[in-house]
């Protein structure tokens, strides 16, 4: 990447820059004549004016243009028409040039961002220890942003604006050299002073960039270390630190403003002096008869146009310096030594490549900054199919050796041969597909379990997405744009999944494979429960929706046949009030989708109010709301604000409680009809949350339930078309897309207050699904569980399991496990260990173990200490008194 901004611009946009310059050059003659015309017009008017005074307009000599004789009027109109045409042409040029520049700038910005991002992908891993994402992210996002605008301007702006400046200047000089000299008089002063001021601004700007960057880094650090900030009560210090940094930025910016506006002030003052010279000197010259009035007017008009381009030129100069510094500072951060060759990332693998033969390490050393030796002369040769355990303590090199073996870290000395090839030179398309590496902190994408599992199969776009004609056309355009900006032409919307690498024929088999692997790593139950808690789109998964309806029927039968189970679920029944559902659910008899009928919006929804009015329920519900409010105020007003009980149990948040306290006293004896609209709305919102069986407030009696049922019928019958999509009604014969699979199977509410009800129903549901052979299907749905940012919705042991399963998806020749089961319990660990031993019976398995005692089933154990392999051999060979391995076993 060029070190200077202009180098970068020239390398990637030379042609466009030349085009811009040509465009500017072509536009100048038009510009010149648009200055000259006013002179012609005014002189013509002056001549005509003489004839008008004499009353001899008729004898005014005709102008002959192209053989056509024109009288005074026609000549004037012709000149004006030409003037108008020239103005339009000049405007047209400006428009075209600006659009061209804008597009060029955006394209270059895109290229720059892309190249910086690719750089990150090419950084050697140890470099990430030194860089902070807080500083790096704003470099690619915000810091380079103004560069796009500038790049379009880089060459054409000084030349174009210079031309705009020179054309009127030349025009003025042609009219009269003295006037010209007056126009030029002050430029030398400006040209001397302004760069001096700018130089100081530049230094400040450089500091500003660095300070803002470190500010971003600070914020990132605070977020990452927030627990410790609170744990040590250091928030005051953090605030002071932050304020200090802001103060520094403030000071820098303040200085910059002062200097910038000083430059502007000088510039404006000087510009104002020039007209003074024109009026005085120009007027004198008119008296002398050296200049005619028309020329003076035209010169003054032209002079006005000097200020614009001059200002633009100054701005350009200031901006250029600013951008130049930014570019150099950004690029400087993206030039680490040992940048990975782009070929390593780009090269496709040789056809049908497999890793076979031996791992041969000879004298492998890994140091950092020359001081810390992580690996110190590691040498061993082992067949790639061997099962190798690496044991040792935290500083033994046990953490680093697997990274070197997976070719994620390049050794600083010595050599690693894999199957006779130098590992350092292998492209990632070989190492990243034939070797699988998983650490204890496998990274999870913030999408579904499925996406996380398939991630290891997405190396290249393999199948174009299916597009219609218009879509294909659009795709071609997008691709062309990408290529023009030096971006990758690969389409993210294509199908990237390499089924062949996974050893399957298509999506269905791949899903089966994923489920099998999840079973292997002991995550089958988790996925099953994720599936039960998940939602599906019945239009896309019609088979599953239908199967779930069968399960619903089967469960119903079981409940009917066993009264002890029947008490656990209260099914939805269109003609019955459900005691275990909220009043809102009972009224709607469905699941709200979207906001219209959400709990909080219900009391203000126009249609709901209309239905309640029609059913004559509004005032009764308000009275009920008043009772709820009274109860809540009574129960919760003794608690401090923000107490956990509010969130867990109260219908009213602690923030709203004081308001409701006042409300309850205010409306204590007021008829609902006489309350203010606001009070009514507030009270009405409360009873919707009432669940009879849970809250036991005894506010809803049987008669009232009957009336709610009537309102329910009304609600469904008159629901306008526009709200049809806001609710999924409970229908015993239809799948409810807005509910979870489990709720669809239950088709009812878990009864409150049944001891161990949830567990018993969970077992029952599992049983029903097992008899219908649906467990697999539910697990398929579980693959769509969203894992949250960085897998935050998974436990750390679930993340580790997924990380291992993801490795297995791609059928690697060698699997390298770096303490990746550390969060799991012993039983799960041995289950996974056995599973992997079985899977890699004919492949290679290298495992850095966090406990030496797990090493028993391995073919070879490498015992590490201080970066060296101090012992190696089979478990039985090493487990003898006097060996380091034996000591380790004893320590555990």
């Amino acid at each position, binding site marked *: 990447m060029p070190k200077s901004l202009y180098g970068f611009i020239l390398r990637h946009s030379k042609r466009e820059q030349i085009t811009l310059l040509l465009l500017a050059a072509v536009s100048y003659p038009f510009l010149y004549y648009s200055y000259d015309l006013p002179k012609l017009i005014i002189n013509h008017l002056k001549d005509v004016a003489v004839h008008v005074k004499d009353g001899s307009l008729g004898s005014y000599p005709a102008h002959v243009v192209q053989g056509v004789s024109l009288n005074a009027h026609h000549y004037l109109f012709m000149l004006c028409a030409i003037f108008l045409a020239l103005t339009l042409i000049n405007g047209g040029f400006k428009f075209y040039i600006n659009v061209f520049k804008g597009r060029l700038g955006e394209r270059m910005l895109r290229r720059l961002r892309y190249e910086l991002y690719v750089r990150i992908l090419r950084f050697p891993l140890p470099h990430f220890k030194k860089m902070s994402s807080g500083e790096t992210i704003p470099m690619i996002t915000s810091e380079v942003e103004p560069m796009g605008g500038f790049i379009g301007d880089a060459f054409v702006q000084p030349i174009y604006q210079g031309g705009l400046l020179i054309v009127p200047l030349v025009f003025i000089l042609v009219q009269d050299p003295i006037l010209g000299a007056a126009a030029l008089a002050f430029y030398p002063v400006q040209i001397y002073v302004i760069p001096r001021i700018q130089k100081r601004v530049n230094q400040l700007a450089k500091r500003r960039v660095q300070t803002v960057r470190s500010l971003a880094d600070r914020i990132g650090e605070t977020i990452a270390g927030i627990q410790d900030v609170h744990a040590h009560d250091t928030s005051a210090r953090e605030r002071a630190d932050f304020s200090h940094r802001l103060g520094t930025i403030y000071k820098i910016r303040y200085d910059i403003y002062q200097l910038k506006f000083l430059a502007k002030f000088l510039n404006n003052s000087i510009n104002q002096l020039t007209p003074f010279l024109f009026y005085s000197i120009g007027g004198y010259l008119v008296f002398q008869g050296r200049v005619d009035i028309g020329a003076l007017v035209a010169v003054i008009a032209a002079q006005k146009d000097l200020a614009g381009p001059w200002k633009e030129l100054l701005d350009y100069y200031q901006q250029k310096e600013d951008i130049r510094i930014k570019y150099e500072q950004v690029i400087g951060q993206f030039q680490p030594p040992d940048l990975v060759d782009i070929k390593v990332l780009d090269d496709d693998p040789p056809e049908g490549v497999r890793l076979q033969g031996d791992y041969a390490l000879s004298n492998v050393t890994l140091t950092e900054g020359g001081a810390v030796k992580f690996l110190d002369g590691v040498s061993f040769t082992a067949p790639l199919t061997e099962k190798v355990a690496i044991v040792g303590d935290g500083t033994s090199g046990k953490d680093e050796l697997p990274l070197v073996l997976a070719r994620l870290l390049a050794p600083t000395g010595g050599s690693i041969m894999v199957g006779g090839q130098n590992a350092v030179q292998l492209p990632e398309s070989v190492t990243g597909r034939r070797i699988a590496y998983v650490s204890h902190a496998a990274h999870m994408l913030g999408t579904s379990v499925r996406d996380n599992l398939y991630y290891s199969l997405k190396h290249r776009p393999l199948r174009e997405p299916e597009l219609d004609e218009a879509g294909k056309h659009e795709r071609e355009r997008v691709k062309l744009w990408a290529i023009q900006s030096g971006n990758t032409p690969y389409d993210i919307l294509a199908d990237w999944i390499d089924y062949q690498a996974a050893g399957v024929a298509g999506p269905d088999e791949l899903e089966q494979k994923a489920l099998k692997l999840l079973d292997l790593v002991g995550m089958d139950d988790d996925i099953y429960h994720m599936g039960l808690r998940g939602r599906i789109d019945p239009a896309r998964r019609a088979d599953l929706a239908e199967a779930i309806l069968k399960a619903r029927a089967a469960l119903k039968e079981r409940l009917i046949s066993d009264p002890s189970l029947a*008490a656990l679920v209260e099914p939805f029944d269109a003609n019955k009030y459900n005691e275990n559902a909220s009043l809102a659910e009972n009224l709607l008899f469905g699941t709200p989708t979207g906001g219209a009928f959400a709990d909080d919006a219900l009391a203000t929804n126009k249609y709901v109010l209309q239905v309640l009015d029609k059913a004559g329920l509004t005032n009764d519900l308000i009275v009920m709301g008043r009772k709820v409010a009274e109860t809540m105020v009574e129960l919760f007003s003794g608690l401090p604000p923000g*107490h956990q009980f509010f969130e867990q149990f109260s219908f009213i948040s602690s923030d709203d409680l004081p308001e409701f306290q006042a409300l309850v006293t205010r409306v204590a004896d007021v008829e609902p009809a006489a309350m203010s609209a606001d009070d009514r709305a507030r009270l009405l919102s409360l009873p919707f949350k009432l669940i009879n069986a849970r809250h036991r407030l005894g506010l809803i009696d049987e008669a009232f339930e009957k009336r709610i049922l009537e309102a329910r019928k009304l609600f469904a019958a008159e629901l306008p078309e526009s709200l049809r999509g806001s609710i999924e009604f409970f229908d015993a014969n239809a799948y409810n897309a807005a509910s979870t699979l489990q709720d669809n199977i239950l088709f009812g509410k878990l009864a409150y207050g049944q*001891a161990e009800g949830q567990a018993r129903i969970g077992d029952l549901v599992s049983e029903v699904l097992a008899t219908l052979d649906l467990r697999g299907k539910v697990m398929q749905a579980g693959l769509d569980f969203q894992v949250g940012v960085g897998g935050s919705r998974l436990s750390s042991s679930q993340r580790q399991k997924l990380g291992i399963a993801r490795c297995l998806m791609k059928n690697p020749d060698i699997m390298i496990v770096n303490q990746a089961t550390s969060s799991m319990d012993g039983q799960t660990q041995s289950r996974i260990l056995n599973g992997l031993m079985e899977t890699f019976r004919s492949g290679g398995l290298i495992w850095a173990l966090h406990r030496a005692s797990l090493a028993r089933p391995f073919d070879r154990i490498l015992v590490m200490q201080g970066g060296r392999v101090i012992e190696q051999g089979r478990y039985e060979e090493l487990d003898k008194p006097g060996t380091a391995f034996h000591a380790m076993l004893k320590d555990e």
Partner: protein
Amino acid sequence: MSINEEVDALRRIPLFSNLEPSKLKLLAFTSERLTYAKGQTIFRQGDMGDAAYIVLDGQADVMIGATDNQRKVATIGKHSILGEIAVLCDVPRTATVVAVDKLVALKISKDLFLRMVKEFPQMAVEIMRELARRLDRTNQQLAALSKQS
């Protein structure tokens, strides 16, 4: 079944009898009301206790001994409290309790109970009094026993 019934039951328990009605109501409102079928176990001897139970309806057998050698030591009924020691300190259950017939109980979780005590010191004082009374009673019984022997 309304919450007032539960408040009424709570008030009959000496541990709670002196508390303000509004606190009892909060305790009732925030607690779960559970129904047990005949023969269902409420808690098991040796398990760590996480809740106290107040019997609202029905009867329960209190059993002591290993699973295969259980011995019924008492039957308790409506308005009695079960496992209250567990919510005050971390000790394993000293007995197994099984529902004789259908049983309804209010489950007061340890967490909930302790939070209430923290919020309303009056409750703590009342509980202290009740515990002191029990201690005194035990002391007297011990004294009587030692005199006998």
